[in-house]
C-alpha cells in the first residue's frame, strides 16, 4: 500500500504494538488450549519488549500508515550449532490490522526484514505459528515458504487444558 512506511519499532509504538500482540495471541488461543492468553502478564510483556527493542538478537519492525502502527513483525535471531547456515531469523510475531490487510503490507514487512538481515549476512528466515492457522500457512506458502518443522504437544492433567 502506498504511503506505508516500514521502520524499526520504537518505545513510543509500544501501546499499539501491545494491542496487536494481544489480538494475535487471542486468535492463537482459539487454535489450541495451550495458547490460553495470560492477561495478567501485560506489564511483564511491556518490560520485555522495552528490553529487546535495541537488542541484536531480535529484529522488531512496524508498518506505519498516516502515523498509526498498522502492522508488526518480530523475529528472533537463532544460532544453529549443528547446521549451516549458522544463523536463522525466526518470525514469532506477525500481525496486520484487519482494515489494512490484502494490501501488501505483510509482504512489505517480510521484505524489510529480509533486507535488514542481509546486512548481517543472515539468509535463512523461518516463521512460527499455530498449525491450525490456515491463513498464516497460506500467506507463507504464497511467498514460497515450505513446512520444515512440526511441534507436537501434550499437557499433563494439571495443565491449563482440561
Amino acid at each position, binding site marked *: 500500500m502506498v504511503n506505508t512506511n516500514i521502520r524499526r519499532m520504537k518505545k513510543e509504538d509500544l501501546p499499539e504494538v501491545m494491542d496487536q500482540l494481544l489480538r*494475535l495471541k487471542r*486468535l492463537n488461543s482459539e487454535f489450541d488450549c495451550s495458547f490460553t492468553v495470560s492477561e495478567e502478564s501485560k506489564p511483564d510483556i511491556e518490560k520485555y519488549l522495552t528490553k529487546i527493542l535495541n537488542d541484536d538478537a531480535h529484529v522488531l519492525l512496524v508498518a506505519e500508515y498516516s502515523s498509526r502502527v498498522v502492522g508488526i513483525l518480530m523475529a528472533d535471531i537463532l544460532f544453529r550449532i549443528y547446521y549451516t547456515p549458522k544463523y536463522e531469523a525466526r518470525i514469532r510475531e506477525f500481525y496486520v490490522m*484487519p482494515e489494512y490487510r490484502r494490501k501488501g503490507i505483510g509482504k512489505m514487512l517480510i521484505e524489510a526484514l529480509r533486507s535488514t538481515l542481509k546486512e548481517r549476512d543472515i539468509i535463512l528466515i523461518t516463521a512460527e505459528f499455530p498449525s491450525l492457522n490456515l491463513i498464516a500457512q497460506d500467506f507463507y506458502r504464497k511467498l514460497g515458504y515450505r513446512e520444515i518443522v512440526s511441534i507436537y504437544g501434550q499437557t499433563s492433567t494439571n495443565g491449563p487444558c482440561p
Partner: protein
Amino acid sequence: MIMEDQERTEKYNEDALRYSEYFKGKIQTISKVPVRSLDDFSIWYTPGVAAVSKKIASDPDLSFELTGRWNSIAILTDGTRVLGLGNIGPEAAMPVMEGKALIFNYLGGVNAIPVPIRVKSREEFVSVAKALEPSFGGINLEDIESPKCFFLLETLQKEMNIPVWHDDQLGTASITLAGVINALRVVGKKIDQVKVVFNGAGAANIAAAFLFKAAGFKMKNMILVDSKGILQPEREDIDSLMINNPWKYQLAIETNGERIKGDLSNAVEGADLLISAAKSGPDTIDSKVVKKMNKDAVVFVLANPIPEMWPEEAKENGARIVATGRSDFSNQINNSLVFPGVFRGVLDARAKGVNFDVMVAASYEIANFVEEPSEEKIVPTMEEWELYPRLASAVASKTVELGLARKNDSKEGFYRRAREIIEGNRNIYSKLMDLGLIKRMPNGEHKY
C-alpha cells in the same frame, strides 16, 4: 396476544404429532406412466428400458429428456440446525424435509426428495452432494449450521453443474429484498441512498447483505449488528472471523463505511431500514430504537415465532412500514413465496447454476407482482397462485440471459410451461383428495 399465540402453537404441535402417526410420512413416490397390462413393464422396464439407458450412456445430458431428472431435486441436510431446534441430527430433520418437499411439490410442481445425511465433516458433505448430481436437476440445502452453510453453498455452487440453493440464506434474502424494494417504492427512497442496518449476522442476514449489494445498495451504507455489537474491523473477534467465517469477515471490512462502533442503538442512528433476523421476541429489540431512525423508517422483524418487537410498537415509535415472519400480521416475509417458483424456473431452463443476479431478478419479479404496493402490502401472499409461474418464468429467462440455461424459451413460453406443470400437479393432488385416495384427516377434523 402472547397467550393466544402459545395456545395455538400447542394445538399445532399436538396435531402434528397425531397426524404424523396417522399418515406415517407426508410424501411418497407415485408412478406417472400408464400400466395397461403387465406387458407394459417390458417398455418401462426390461427389455425396452435398455435402449433408453444406452442412449443416455452416449450422452448423459439426455437423462434430463428421458427420465424424471428434469423435475427432481434433493433436499439435502445434515440436520445440524433444524428450525430453532439446533443440531438434532438427520433422522429428526426428516419431518421438516418432508414438509419442505410437500411445499415444493404443491406450490412449484417440483419432485423434491428429502435426503438427510449423516456426515462427519464438511468435506464429506461436499462429496455426498457431488455424488448425487447425476440423479437430480438441482439441490436445495436446508437447515445446516452457520458458517458451514456458507462454505457448502460456495463450494457446491462452484463445483456442481446443477443449481445449488440454500434456502435459509438465499430464500430468506430474496423475499426480504422483494419486500424492501416495495417498501422503498412506498416511502419514495432510493436503493443507492438508503442506510440499512441488519440486526443479527446469521445465514439469512449475511446472505441478504451480499444480495443487497448485488441489487445496488451501497456496502458503506450497511451496518451489521450481532450479539457482540456492531461489526467493524477492530472488533476483538475479527481475526477469529477471518479464519472461521470469512463471509462475515468480508462484511466487517466492506460495510459500515463510517466505522461506527457500539451496539444496535448506535447503528440505527439515521437508518432508513432495519432488517432484524435475530432471536425470537418479544422485546429482543427495544422498540425505542426505531425513534432514532430516519423519517419513514422501514422495519423488518423476522424472528419466529415471535418478532423482535411487536409491529404496533414499532409503528408507535415511528416506523411507517413493518414486516414480520408471521401470517397473522400484514407483510409476511415468507420464503415459501420464493423457493417453489425459483426451482420451477431453474428446472424449466435446465440451468447449470443460480447466482445473485438471478436472485435480484427474482426479487424484482416478486415485488412487481404486487400491483399497488402500500404500507400494508409490500409482498404477495401464499394464496396468490399466479406468483409461482410468473416467478418461474422470470428466473428461467434470467438464467437464459446470463448464459446459465441449457434450454431456451421466451418468457411467455417459460410461463406457460411452469403454469401447466404446477396446475397439472395440483389437479392430480386435488383429484386424489376428492376421491379419498389421499386419506382424509382422521375423524373429519376441521380445517384451520
